[in-house]
């Protein structure tokens, strides 16, 4: 059975229970029976969302009602005031950066920004940054570091923009420089993958001391569609590619590439932004408290070791031939 059919079936059951509740004569026994039914259906619903496969989660991660950086800026922070421009070429609307307060503390917010309707999507370039976006992010992060302010990153992009102008202005150089320089910023950096962690375009603002992932977010070296069209030579094989690439938050945690998976409200983050932010706020507050205690040198050493340990998927077993 298709997952959508299953979801519709559960929703039908929920409606049936509601109808029953309205129709039947209320006595203690039917009340108890109804409550039992309601709980069973709720359990089915919970189970459904717990067992979403990689492709279903990809759909959720791309849901247009998912909270974006500017939503988190409003829900998690006070007095967000945006900073624009890379001081070299322009201002990229697909990455937003700004000063804000987190529980009273001055911090920097950096994140990808997607649009919800067609007009916004175009204005935000579908959340696909160009080099000036990455350079703006680095510029403001260096500014935060200069004044000792912690940095919060929110990652949600299909990837860095693959276009002529982006190449001309050095997309690769911008990403590479961010990776090297952000690694050395002596202030706490808390990263949350909130939607799509699209390859290098995501990683360029996803280097930090804590890497969190919302439950239905994905993180991947290539989009499932891209992988499918290269390896299967058929973009329609994207669901298989999504499974093979191990892109879900749980996969990422098992691979040791993210620290924490942050639960979403039942049904997904798009159903309730406030609740999503509330759960995330607890995680971020706790992590920030841990990190601000560390002296900068120790913070940097831990950050280095964190990435140094990632993805050690090798063994020393190959019989080397003499060369040279």
């Amino acid at each position, binding site marked *: 059975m298709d997952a959508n059919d299953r979801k519709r079936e559960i929703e039908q059951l929920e409606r049936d229970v509601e109808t029953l509740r309205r129709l039947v004569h209320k006595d203690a026994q039917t009340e108890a029976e109804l409550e039992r039914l309601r709980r069973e259906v709720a359990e089915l619903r919970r189970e459904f969302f717990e067992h979403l496969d990689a492709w279903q989660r990809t759909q959720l991660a791309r849901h247009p009602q998912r909270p974006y950086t500017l939503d988190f800026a409003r829900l998690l922070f006070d007095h967000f005031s945006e900073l624009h421009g890379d001081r070299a070429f322009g201002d990229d609307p697909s990455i937003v950066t700004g000063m804000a307060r987190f529980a009273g503390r001055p911090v920097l917010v950096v994140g990808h920004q997607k649009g919800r309707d067609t007009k916004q999507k175009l204005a935000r370039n579908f959340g696909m940054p160009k080099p000036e976006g990455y350079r703006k992010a680095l510029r403001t992060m260096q500014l935060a570091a200069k004044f000792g302010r912690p940095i919060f990153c929110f990652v949600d992009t299909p990837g*860095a923009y*693959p*276009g*002529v102008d*982006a*190449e*001309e202005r*050095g*997309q*690769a*150089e911008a*990403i*590479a*420089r961010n*990776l*090297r*320089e952000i*690694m*050395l910023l002596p202030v706490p950096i808390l990263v949350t993958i909130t939607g799509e*962690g699209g*390859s*290098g375009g995501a*990683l*360029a603002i996803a*280097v930090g001391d804590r890497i969190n992932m919302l439950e239905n977010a994905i*993180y*991947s*070296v*290539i989009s499932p569609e*891209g*992988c499918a069209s*290269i*390896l*299967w030579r058929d973009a329609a094989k994207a669901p298989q*590619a999504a499974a*093979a*690439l*191990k*892109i879900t938050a749980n996969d*990422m945690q098992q*691979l040791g*590439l993210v620290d924490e998976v942050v639960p979403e409200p039942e049904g997904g983050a798009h159903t309730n932004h406030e609740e999503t932010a509330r759960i995330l706020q607890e995680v971020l507050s706790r992590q920030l408290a841990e990190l601000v205690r560390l002296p900068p040198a120790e913070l940097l050493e831990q*950050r*280095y070791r964190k*990435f*140094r340990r*990632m*993805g*050690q*998927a*090798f*063994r*020393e*077993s*190959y*019989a*080397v*031939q003499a*060369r*040279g």
Partner: protein
Amino acid sequence: MAWFRREKKPVEQPTPPEERRVRTEGMWTKCEACGQIIWKKDLETNWNVCPRCQHHFRLSAVRRLELLLDDGQWVEHDGALESTDPLEFVDTRPYRERLREAQQKTGMADAILTAEGRLQGHPVLCCSMEFGFIGGSMGAVVGEKVTRAAELALARRLPLVIVSCSGGARMMEGAISLMQMAKICAALGRLDRARIPYISVLADPTTGGVTASYAMLGDLNIAEPGALIGFAGPRVIEQTIRQKLPEGFQRAEFLLAHGFLDAVVHRKELKSYIASALDFFLA
């Protein structure tokens, strides 16, 4: 006279089809750029550069080291590292199979060699990538070897030279490949702050996650003529903008014009160019 029946056997048996070929087959090759037919031996003695149009053919990782390091001699580091196939990845074929095949074809454990040797007398660490190994793609092994090379360069204050030749991150190791970019850049950051020279050489092709990490972070970024260098591959860009790309787009000369390369250097001058740069940094 036999009008209807053949009386005599043919004088000799025709050559069976599997033996029917020109004796010199496989000894000639055609230049991809100018169409010149070149004797393969000539091409090899000419550093895999077309004698007519100077088109740079790809070099194997080993051949590259032979051309760069003094007397073609070096000590290899971390040669035994091979992938564990962390995702147990299967597309139309198991990744494990692709790995084994690539190892047999190249005689290497993965897509990069780390060599310690001398370059016109300068002791150096040199990483050389092999495009013939799954498109020179970067997974956990390439990431670890480059990181170790950077860390060794830091510990022993040796200049680092990396010759990139890669299609980017290796899909079959998923996000593990992606994180190699961060890991390598972290190590290069330390090298940078310790003021140890790192020279990045970009050969044809250098794209994707390799360009967007170590290949663009050299104190010098130098490329071979005509090398394809970019973040997104040309086909992906064409699909995005639905237009044909201009001639020369993403070639070394294009990057030079846009300010992302220090120089485009002919293969025959590469070694002396790097040596003079090291003189500048270290002498």
